[in-house]
């Protein structure tokens, strides 16, 4: 019983300590705002920016062509090897 009570007290202490720590963190870490000038400049840049989406080049067709070329070369080589007397 005594051990359980001690454990419960310890848990309560830990929770209280954590809550205390959390409230201190909340008090210290105040929200930071950007300057009004920066906000306006960025808004203007976004409005005047040309709409462009940068996409990665899709290499799949090139790779398929390459694989097809290798397969054809291999098949031709094997065929010629068989036909050779």
């Amino acid at each position, binding site marked *: 019983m005594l051990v359980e009570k001690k454990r419960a007290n310890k848990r309560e202490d830990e929770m209280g300590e*954590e809550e205390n*720590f*959390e409230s*201190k*963190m*909340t*008090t*210290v*870490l*105040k*929200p*930071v*705002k*950007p*300057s009004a000038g*920066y*906000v306006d400049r*960025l*808004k203007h*840049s*976004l*409005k005047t*920016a040309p*709409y*462009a*989406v*940068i996409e990665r080049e899709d290499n799949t067709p090139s790779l398929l062509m390459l694989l097809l070329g290798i397969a054809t070369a291999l098949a031709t080589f094997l065929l010629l090897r068989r036909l050779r007397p």
Partner: protein
Amino acid sequence: MKTKDQMAEPEALTDDNATARASQGDSEAFSYLYEQNVNRIYNYVFYRVGSEADAEDITSRVFFRAFGHISNYVDKGVPFSAWLYRIAHNLIANWHRDNFRRHEVSLDEHIDLPQRIEQPEATMEQTQEVELLLRAIRNLTEDRQQLLVLKFTEHLSNAEIAVIMNKSEGAVKSLYHRSLASLKVEMKKLGFQEEGLIVVGGEEESE
């Protein structure tokens, strides 16, 4: 009863319809989303990188990237801000990686606390303590930093953080407790004392 002219007017922008309209190319809707989110994204970025110049640069890139990909945005019922936070998180990760390549970050690196932090009563001592606290946060792993910043500067709930971090609420809760424990360890390493950890408005001194 609405007149014909009133009916022809476009629907007023709200949090609910702005995303859909922006993804269809409505620049006013994107401006609305920008205004709703720029402060919180800047705040998040600032606490992750520690300098005004870098925070401004990364925040700009977040919105330019969002602007460039808004047409591909699919509304899955997740707040638009969550998408922006994810973009910011990825850009910050790249920034840290590039920074690490350029030079190893010194422990004495100065953290540029802007004057706009609303703490008129703040003393020099408190500012130093905040700097040390931020340094301790930045010594944590990326996901722990992200969680603590979202929790303490954005005051988001575990459920909201879970959406941003793409984790379950339970996983966020568990990560949160581990993060706090790690933060305490880091703070001790940097010389904080457990009790008089951070003096705010002289409360600790008067005890």
